[in-house]
């Protein structure tokens, strides 16, 4: 079927592959036919409504839209016949009649004006439409000027078919047709999630980023230059282009990276100006002698000078290093610890772990992966000896059945979510399992709102069903797994009927989804922190692994296991060895042969024991074992469970060095604060959730005296006795490649050229492998290990005193602890204050109105914040995002750890909730 056909285009014999349109062929041959409604980008279907691309086909009564029409063999097409040219120009002239004048055009460089220029049109002979829509500036991020709208429908397709946010529609009809948000509501009042795809797609300037428009809604002052780099936020790893004017970022646009295909979300597109926030640290700071540390005191990040004084880099670095050195030399290496960051580059992660292992002499190095997917990684390492995803999330394109459990990608991985929604629209089965309803619910074929903490019951009931009903892929199990009999025995009693009460999902539904998953040609599982952040997080992940193994739903296109990684470089930081038990590439620190290699390379004896993890380090501080900590870009004072306890530990330290871009809650307790570089100010490699190693390029210079992170780490290392001589991150990358097989085939030069390479990769001239485990597993015997699990209840169940379940997580607009996004003006304007989410019936029962202040208290702490109505939250639950320093959710959370992954139970603890007014009354 795919044999090329030959036809005539403008008198030339031309060959075309089936599926190619006349427009595409013509463009390929160097003649771009005018187009407005056609966006020549992935995900956009040609709609052929503007009729600016009409061509003449011999023998046809009317002209044909070249953007949609595929030639047939022997067809005679002319793009330049008088009839076609006249029609195309007339279409432009019709549209021009109703446009604002060029001088006041919202975007004078829009695609529309480009084609007007090419057609030599600046005036229309037609009378204008009487109706001139007014500006809608109700949205924080975008301006809507429908006087420039040509009804090309691109924004509708952007919103509905590409990002599947379904906010924009075309209402009414004929000349009254009108782009609307929801029910014709102001954009800012609508369900718009501000992904900005419409802005990027609009060919006229009718939809634009608000920030680039002046008071007359005109985009004056074009950007001076563009820099291709990456998004600083989540693990999706969107590629983007930064538009820079006067050395400041003006706006960003999505690029065609493998993970985002030009798409972005609100954070990536509109959350870049935090780097210019007045809170930005631009000078090294040292704690004043008369400013003792108080874990409960809140400093003003705008004015650190109440507790700190400015210092020169020399003084600050000397002081930072000597404090660490003194402790090391006095109390031994184990009295020190270091935290790196999943927001830093691979090179920075490598340098931090090297600093701690080589410079401090300990394996006490960790980062926030511990708080995210440590249990997932533990289960995956145990099961298949690889912690990474088996397939990219874009594998959903080929999947027939998709399970999303304990993940809310609409908020946390919005661009990944768009691919899942695309798949659901295409007709794939989408099974969503989450105690809370969510953005994917509407698209789901099955929504299983199970009881919080009952994951193992639900998943084992599915495994039970698959085994009992003979849906096991026997061949796969025999060929590629071990432990099936143990698993089978383990799930024997987990009948869906028995588990129905435990998990709150009826047996028929459990059986139905188990069958769908097992019998679909290609099934894939995505999960997030709803799986991992439990005391039974490792067991949860073990169940998912077992599900995929017994059904053989792994190692083929459209199948697999994909823990959605949270931070932009949590994969890369873990790969680079920023974890206490592993050197780079997950080589155990306890294995002599491996340690020998590093001892030779780093020229000293290395720690033989596994180091302590994030939460364990805080405990060790309380136990007087650890006295000095170096923190690069992390904020444990906000992100750790039972944050009060963590803050006390930080305050108790003899010496705390914090390297960051803001005075974070952690930095407030530091002895030395080193002003570092923000994402857009640095160059380095970052590895996303899909195992795609991508190059970020420096966009703007660091402000004031802030310095590159790699430079700061090296200065510290050299001040505690090392002799590092890196001159650029690429030197570090080259060193990493010496020991990391995962970087095989991925050179710095290649990344500069190609922007991205997926690992594992066979060689410099081969693309990487998107799908792994295609032929067995990288375990010793090539088999995946199936591990049975038992029911472990959450560590702290609700009782009479604390009757409500608290679960924590994120909101769409805010990232992690909020250090960046709370300072991004647009994002903070959309979500400016702490809120607790409850369902309206629960609120009514508790006497809480929307917007009332409520008091939420656990055995560990208390916060006050406003109540938000959220129908997705089940009865008996409150959800609080952990990004708000004013009401830090982690003051409440339970630090109980999963015994294997050492991850705290952020998703479940017991609290009580009261309206504040009632509390006051009771006190009186």
């Amino acid at each position, binding site marked *: 079927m795919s044999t090329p056909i030959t036809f005539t285009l403008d008198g030339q014999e031309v060959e075309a592959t089936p599926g190619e349109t006349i427009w595409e062929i013509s463009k390929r041959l160097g003649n771009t036919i005018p187009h407005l409604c056609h966006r020549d980008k992935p995900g956009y279907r040609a709609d052929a*409504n*503007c*009729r*600016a691309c*009409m061509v003449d086909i011999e023998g046809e009564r*009317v*002209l044909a*839209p070249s953007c*949609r*029409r595929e030639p047939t063999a022997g067809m005679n097409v002319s793009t330049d016949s008088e*009839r076609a040219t*006249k*029609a195309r120009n*007339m*279409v432009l002239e*019709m*549209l021009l*009649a109703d446009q604002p004048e060029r001088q006041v055009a919202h975007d004078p460089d829009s695609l529309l004006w480009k084609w007007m220029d090419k057609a030599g049109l600046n005036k229309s*002979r*037609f*009378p204008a*439409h009487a109706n001139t829509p007014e500006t809608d500036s*109700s*949205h*924080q991020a975008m301006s809507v000027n429908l006087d420039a709208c040509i*009804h090309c429908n691109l924004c509708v397709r952007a919103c*509905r078919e590409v990002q599947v946010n*379904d*906010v924009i*529609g*075309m*209402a009414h*009809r*004929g*000349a*009254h*047709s009108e782009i*609307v*948000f*929801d*029910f*014709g*509501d*102001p954009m*800012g*009042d*609508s*369900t718009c999630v501000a992904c900005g795809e419409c802005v990027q797609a609009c060919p006229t300037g009718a939809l634009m980023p608000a920030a680039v428009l002046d008071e007359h809604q005109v985009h004056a002052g074009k950007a001076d230059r563009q820099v291709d780099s990456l998004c600083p936020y989540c693990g999706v790893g969107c590629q983007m282009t930064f538009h820079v004017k006067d050395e400041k970022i003006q706006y960003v646009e999505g690029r065609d990276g493998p993970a985002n295909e030009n798409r972005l979300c609100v954070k990536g597109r509109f959350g870049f100006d935090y780097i210019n926030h007045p809170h930005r640290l631009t000078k090294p700071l040292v704690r004043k002698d008369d400013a003792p540390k108080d874990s409960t005191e809140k400093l003003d990040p705008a004015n650190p000078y109440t507790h700190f004084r400015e210092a020169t880099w020399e003084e600050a670095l000397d002081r930072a290093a000597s404090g660490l050195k003194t402790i090391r030399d006095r109390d031994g290496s184990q009295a020190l610890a270091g935290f790196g960051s999943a927001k830093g580059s691979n090179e920075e992660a490598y340098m931090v772990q090297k600093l701690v292992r080589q410079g401090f002499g300990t394996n006490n190095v960790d980062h926030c992966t511990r708080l995210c997917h440590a249990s997932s990684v533990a289960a995956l390492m145990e099961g298949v000896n690889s912690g990474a995803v088996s397939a990219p999330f874009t594998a959903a394109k080929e999947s027939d059945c998709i399970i999303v459990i304990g993940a809310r990608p609409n908020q946390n991985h919005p661009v990944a979510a768009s691919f899942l929604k695309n798949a659901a629209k295409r007709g794939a089965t989408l099974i969503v399992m989450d105690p809370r309803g969510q953005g994917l619910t*509407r698209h789901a074929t099955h929504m299983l709102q199970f009881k919080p903490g009952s994951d193992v019951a639900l998943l084992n009931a599915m495994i039970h069903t698959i085994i009992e009903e003979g849906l096991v892929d026997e061949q796969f199990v025999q060929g590629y797994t071990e432990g099936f009999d143990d698993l089978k025995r383990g799930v024997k009693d987990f009948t869906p009927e028995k588990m129905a009460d435990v998990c709150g999902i009826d047996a028929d539904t459990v059986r139905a989804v188990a069958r769908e998953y097992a019998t679909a040609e290609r099934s894939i599982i995505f999960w997030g922190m709803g799986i991992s952040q439990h005391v039974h997080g490792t067991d949860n992940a073990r169940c998912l692994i077992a599900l995929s193994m017994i059904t053989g739903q792994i190692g083929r296109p459209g199948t697999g296991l994909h823990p959605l990684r949270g931070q932009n470089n949590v994969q890369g930081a873990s790969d680079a060895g920023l974890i206490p038990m592993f050197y780079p590439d997950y080589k155990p620190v306890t294995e002599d042969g491996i340690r020998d290699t590093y001892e030779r390379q780093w020229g000293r004896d290395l720690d033989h024991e596994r180091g302590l993890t994030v939460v364990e380090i805080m405990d060790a501080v309380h136990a007087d074992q650890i006295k000095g900590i170096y923190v690069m870009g992390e904020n444990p004072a906000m992100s750790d469970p039972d944050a009060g306890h963590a803050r006390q530990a930080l305050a108790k330290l003899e010496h705390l060095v914090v390297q960051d871009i803001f005075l974070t809650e952690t930095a407030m307790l530091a002895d030395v604060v080193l002003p570092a570089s923000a994402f857009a100010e640095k160059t380095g490699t970052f590895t996303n959730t899909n195992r795609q190693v991508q190059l970020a390029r420096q966009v703007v210079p660091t402000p004031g005296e802030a310095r590159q992170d790699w430079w700061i780490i090296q200065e510290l290392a050299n001040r505690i006795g090392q002799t590092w001589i890196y001159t650029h991150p690429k030197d570090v990358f080259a060193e990493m490649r010496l020991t990391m097989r995962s970087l095989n085939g991925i050179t710095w030069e290649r990344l500069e050229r190609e922007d991205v390479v997926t690992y594992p990769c066979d060689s410099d001239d081969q693309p990487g492998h998107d799908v792994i485990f295609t032929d067995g597993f990288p375990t010793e015997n090539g088999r995946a290990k199936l591990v049975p699990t038992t029911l472990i209840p959450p560590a702290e169940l609700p009782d009479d005193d604390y009757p409500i379940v608290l679960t924590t997580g994120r909101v769409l607009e805010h990232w992690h602890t909020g250090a960046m996004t709370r300072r991004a003006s647009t994002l903070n*304007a*959309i*979500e*400016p204050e702490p*809120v607790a989410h409850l369902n309206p019936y629960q609120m009514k029962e508790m006497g809480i109105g*929307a917007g009332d202040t409520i008091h939420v208290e656990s055995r560990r702490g208390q916060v006050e914040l*406003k109540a*938000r*109505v959220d*129908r*997705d939250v089940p009865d008996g639950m409150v959800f609080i995002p952990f990004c708000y320093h004013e009401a830090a959710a982690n003051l409440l959370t339970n630090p109980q750890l999963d015994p294997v992954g050492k991850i705290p139970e952020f998703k479940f603890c017991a609290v009580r909730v009261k309206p504040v007014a009632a509390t006051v009354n009771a006190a009186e």
Partner: protein
Amino acid sequence: MSVATKNGRSRRSLYHSKGRQVDDQALNDIRALLGDNPRRRDLLIEHLHLVQDHYKHLSAPHLAALAKEMKMSLAEIYEVATFYHHFDVVKEGDSAPPQLTIRVCDGIACEMKGAHDLIAELGRSTGADVRVIPAPCVGACDHAPVAVVGQRQIHHATVGSVSEAANSGNILPEIPTYTEFDAYVAGGGYTTWKDCLAGQRERQEVTALVSESGLRGLGGAGFPTGTKWGFLDNTPKPRLLAINADEGEPGTFKDRHIIDSDPHRLLEGVLLASWAIEADAAYIYLRDEYPQSREILLLEIARLKHEDLTGGIELHLRRGAGAYICGEESAMLESLEGKRGLPRNRPPFPAQRGLFGRPTLINNVETIYWIRDIVENGGNWYKDQGRPHFYSVSGRVKNPGVKLAPAGVSVRQLIEEHCGGMEDGHTFKAYLPGGASGGVLPADKGDVPLDFGSLDEFGCFIGSSAVVIFSDEDNIRDICRNLVHFFEDESCGQCTPCRVGCEKMLKLIDAPNWDTELIRELSDTMRDASICGLGQAAPNPVLSAIRFFGDNLS
């Protein structure tokens, strides 16, 4: 709902999820109305009708609740609800329309007979509890002027007769007398169909007869029916049949006549056609202006099922909602899928990818109406009769109505031999051979045979054979304005040449002196570049007016 912030931009309520919230009461209302109906998206328009019929409008809370119930987005619901004339969307702060709506037809035949004065007078004489609005052609041109009170058509409407109907509360459709099931069977009906079911006829035989008869699509395009059926050969199953009963071309009322007089001849044709092309299901898309036809079809389809005569073919009756464009076959498919009626780009053609993406045969009511007789009497019989079909004749003739005549009859023959001549005191001056789309011809072209293709040389066509007769009392400019205004109002708005073109054309012909050069240029592009026949044909009345009446347009 929103508060102002420092930079002057409003901000949504922070204490709810983004956007509109679903109201529990509204959700209960919707659930009660929908009952056990499936929540499938293709039923959206049916569901909107349920709400509109019950509450006489669509309130924003009800629409939001419907979106939630159907798992659709707010925008998807809103854009469909606002596309169709027969839905009244009422947002917060807007007042709901009165309980009773009187639609006065301002189609060309009714306008000639004083529709505008009637609208104005009714507007003055009715109270606040009644709404009087103009409506595009309601398909009763032989009784012009026509007003529709609620769902009841008032023929030869006067202020008196309309007010009386409004006051009496008699607003349900009047069901005409028609050939019911038993009478139809007594006349030999369903014998052929039973033969087919009994295996006494071959599918290919039926298709061959249709091809042989020379039957052409009577919805307006005139495409050879047998050839069209043949396109379904070798397409993947399941296949579908869609019957276009969205007769909206101004001046056309023959399909109404068929359903309202002999519905089983249509239904037997539907079954025969479905069987012949091996379709599992047939969808009849009926315009909402024909509520009496809907009652008849609902009743008679139920009877067919009761008689166990459907042969396993599912029969679905779907209700339009007031949109001329949905008579365009691919727009009709979109509407059958519950969406806005936007014509599709072709290829792919419906026979390849039609309703719900499945191979679909689309035929007009009258085309299907003839199938039984052709199968029974043979293809040659139909050809020998001169390919008869129904002409809808209206305007300045003594006896307007649906006239059965062979293809190729002339307008003079229709006037003289079928309609009793011109109305007294009127001299034949001009006519529309094919409704609003087919152009305007002068009386001196009155002897031209009316058939597919026969008017090409004049830039005109007969389309659905809607012949409207004008006299020396009628003004060509006014006629053009009425027709172009109709197209402007009914353009779906999808493509530039039609959406903008109709709007600009109306402005150009409103000018005292026509810029004929610009009108021609605009017309060329509308004809060459519009997606569907609406935009392609919309300039026809203006072009033929310039061509044939150039001298007396001012």
